[in-house]
């Protein structure tokens, strides 16, 4: 039982992780004991000696447990050796001196040791001093050297002879000219500094790996090299990023800020290109996969489109609202509406009238108490008209709106163009015309409008699409277009639709 415990087993680490919890007990106890002792000796308070001894006893016990847990934690590795050694010695010292101070005062030894009285106060004092220095070392181990005084303000800063405050590299700054950027220094290193070097640096060295300098990164860690120049997909650092976040081997660890797909693509591409130190983007082969990622470095968002590029994330990812009142939800359900919460962390709701075809303008009052929470609203095939849309304009977090097969017209649709987050609008089989389309197309985040069987003309679709890049306007098929489609099966017509890529 004990032997596996002394290796870096899950049990050892489990217990070890309690070190930061346990370690505060002896600190508190010892200081309290010291304060009481001072108060007692200066005559400020009247407390019996046994009280101090009692607190000392628990200081010693808790210090001992903290030492054991601390040792187990250290088996996990990744700490600065020298600092760790000092911290450990001082920690053990706290426990030892606390025991000594307690023993010489304890009932069964107090009378037996002649030099007890002489030892008591020095031992006590040493324990207290060691507590403070060991605590400081511990803080340096977890937060990094110099953490305590990093933000020392002026004038004390110059008095202490410290360098001016250096802002830590946090988020990556946009690059003005991507083509001229040095791949390692301007692209790779900032990503590593933002996401990796917090744990893989000079003082922390998790997994015996440092990522703060290229030479050390190349050297790798306890599991060997983390990158194979020329082979991004086979490099450990890329593989780990691509693992599922719940995987134990995933990096960065679960809960820490993660690399974006683009960032992984960039790192992988840099390794593919042989992990060069001083090459600029323009000097390397830029593959199609890495183009959008490179484009995103310029500060602007990468444009989507062909090649399976990622869509821009929906606004719902960023909308956070308070939960809807249960009574309001029940009222909607009673009226035959389906009300579902979109996801566990946001409280946004979707409302659908698929089972309430009689839903009409006057029923919209039901939606208003949850105006903030509704983000998907399906009113297709209901009795809703233009006057209802005026109320719907109040649902400010609406991203998806289904109005197909309803009586809405251009006048109504003009009322909802103030919806700031609308992304999807379905108005097929309505009286919406060209004016309505142009009006609604002014919504910034709008991505798709479906206008089949409405009064919108093909020319307006083409024109509006030209004017609004990123907006997809989908009109349906006519009989003629179906006839064209059917020709695909005619073997004489079968030809590649587009020229090959790559």
């Amino acid at each position, binding site marked *: 039982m004990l032997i596996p415990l002394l290796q870096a087993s899950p049990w050892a680490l489990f217990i070890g992780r309690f070190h930061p919890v346990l370690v505060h007990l002896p600190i508190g106890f010892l200081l309290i004991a010291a304060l009481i002792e001072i108060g007692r000796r200066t005559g400020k308070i009247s407390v019996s000696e046994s009280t101090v001894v009692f607190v000392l006893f628990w200081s010693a016990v808790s210090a001992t447990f903290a030492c054991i847990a601390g040792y187990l934690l250290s088996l996990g590795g990744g700490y600065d050796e020298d600092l760790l050694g000092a911290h450990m010695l001082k920690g053990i010292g706290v426990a030892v001196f606390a025991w000594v101070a307690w023993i010489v005062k304890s009932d069964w030894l107090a009378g037996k040791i002649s030099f007890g009285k002489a030892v008591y106060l020095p031992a006590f004092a040493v324990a207290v001093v060691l507590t403070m220095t060991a605590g400081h070392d511990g803080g340096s181990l977890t937060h990094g050297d110099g953490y305590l005084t990093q933000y020392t303000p002026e004038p004390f800063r110059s008095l202490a002879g410290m360098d001016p405050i250096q802002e830590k590299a946090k988020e990556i700054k946009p690059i003005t000219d991507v083509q001229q950027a040095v791949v390692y220094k301007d692209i790779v290193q900032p990503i590593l500094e933002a996401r990796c070097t917090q744990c893989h640096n000079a003082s922390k060295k998790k997994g015996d790996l440092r990522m703060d300098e290229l030479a050390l990164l190349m050297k790798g860690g306890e599991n060997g090299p983390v990158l194979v120049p020329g082979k991004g997909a086979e490099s450990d650092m890329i593989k780990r990023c691509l693992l599922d976040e719940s995987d134990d081997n995933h990096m960065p660890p679960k809960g820490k800020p993660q690399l974006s797909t683009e960032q992984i693509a960039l790192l992988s591409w840099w390794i593919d290109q042989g992990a060069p130190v001083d090459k600029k983007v323009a000097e390397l082969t830029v593959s199609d996969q890495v183009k959008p990622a490179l484009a995103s470095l310029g500060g602007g968002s990468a444009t989507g489109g*062909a090649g399976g590029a990622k869509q821009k994330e929906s606004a719902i990812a960023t909308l956070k609202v308070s939960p809807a009142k249960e009574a309001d939800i029940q009222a909607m359900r009673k009226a035959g509406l389906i009300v579902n919460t979109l*996801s566990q962390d946001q409280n946004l709701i979707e409302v659908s009238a698929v089972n309430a075809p009689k839903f009409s303008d006057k029923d919209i009052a039901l939606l208003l108490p949850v105006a903030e929470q509704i983000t998907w609203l399906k009113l297709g095939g209901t009795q809703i008209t233009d006057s209802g849309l005026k109320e719907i304009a109040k649902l400010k977090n609406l991203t998806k709106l289904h109005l197909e097969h309803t009586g809405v017209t251009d006048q109504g649709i003009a009322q909802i163009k103030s919806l700031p987050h609308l992304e999807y609008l379905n108005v097929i089989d309505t009286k919406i015309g060209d004016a309505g389309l142009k009006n609604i197309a002014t919504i910034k985040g709008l991505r798709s409008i479906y206008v089949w069987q409405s009064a919108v003309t093909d020319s307006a679709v083409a024109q509006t699409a030209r004017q609004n890049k990123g907006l997809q306007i989908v009109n349906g098929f006519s009989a003629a277009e179906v006839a064209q489609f059917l020709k695909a099966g005619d073997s004489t017509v079968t030809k590649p639709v587009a020229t090959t890529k790559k």
Partner: protein
Amino acid sequence: MEKLLKELQYADLHRQTRRHFLQSAGFGLGALGLGSLLGSCGASNAGTNVSGNAAAAKIPQFAPKAKRVIYIHMAGAPSQLELFDYKPELVKYHGQDCPAEFLEGKKFAFIQGVPKMLGPQGKFAQYGQSGAWMSDYVPYLQTVADEITFLKAMHTDQFNHAPAQLLMHTGSARLGRPSLGAWSVYGLGSENQNLPGFIVLASGGQQPDAGKSVYGSGFLPSVYQGVQCRTGGDPVLYVSDPSGMNRDMRKQTIEAINEINRQTYEDVKDPEILTRISQYEMAFRMQMSVPEVMDVSKEPQFILDMYGVKPGEGTFAMNCLLARKLVENDVRFVQLFDWGWDGHGTSKDHNVEGGLRQKCRESDQPIAALIKDLKMRGLLEETLIIWGAEFGRTPMQENRNGLVMPFMGRDHHLDAFTMWMAGGGVKQGYSHGETDELGYYGAKDRVHVHDLQATILHLMGFDHEKFTYPFQGRNFRLTDTEGKVVKQVIA
């Protein structure tokens, strides 16, 4: 008291499973009624839902990108090497003995000894802006290449149809687990109260080899099982009015029966009686709703032409059109099965030349039409289409019993096959994974069946590791202990 009530309901659901539901689709529909019934009994829908209310949804971990699914399963397994996985190297090896390293320690369903390699039979080219490789077997699908994400290096664990189909749909090769559709409705709830949340349509003359279990509810309450509708004649047997009885009379009859049942319930308080009452009510509602949604006669001619269907036919093309109509009516999960893709080379219908071409002719146009039709209705971005089979086919020609087959055919292959997805949250015009030069193994970005399932659940908003159901003392998931979400295919 509430515990006791739940216990009763649970026991009730289990009795129902065995006695009534698995046998008949018609009664399965009635099970939906059970939902509203138990909801009204005051059972809580929070946490683990044992109330069996099909409309009650769980709160997903993420906002769903796919609200509905159309899963097209080509039962028997078409050859990826003729359709999507272009292997020019294989042409060179055509007719040569299979390399020994491919055969060492391998088991095949039929191949014995040393088979010959079989070159691709289709003519390949790249299509769309994305340059997707497709063959002349699927000329219509070529026109929607830029809507599709291909998974080129799928792999599975099972080389026989039934267990492989079970694995694909239930996450386990053995019987007893809920199907993907059942999990979906369990998670997101059923929307249209007049229609089942999970509908199954089969074509090709035979049911899938694994039978109804591929769309069963396993240990989930049976309200979540797939309800199979027939495509020709009455969509669901025995829900239409008998001749000589009009709808009013039917309504009065049902009301009278329900009234008697209600009085009995007042006396004995057996929840089974309430179940029966709501089954009658649901069946009555379905008399109207199901024939209406399954009736394609009101569709414009050019839509019928686009799919290539004639009203009254029970073809795969008809099922594609019905699938569109069902998702348009907010049915959560539509499962299509088409039988007859098992191209061993044993007969003129079952091979990778004429036989496979014929199956493609029947299915290629309606599938492309379905994608286009969903798109123009604004449904594609909320609806996930999944196309695939239970496994793929070997790069070797089948030599059953060591003999030369009458037609060119390929054996079952589990190490590499192609599936594709479109719509609902997947990338447009993307290909994930590659096989080796001969299409035998996945060489890059392999995707296991469980990974695919994890990805589908992810698209529907669920973390496959947290989406569980307690049964026999432990929490079960669709992916059991496996599965990694394939993040690269998510838009």
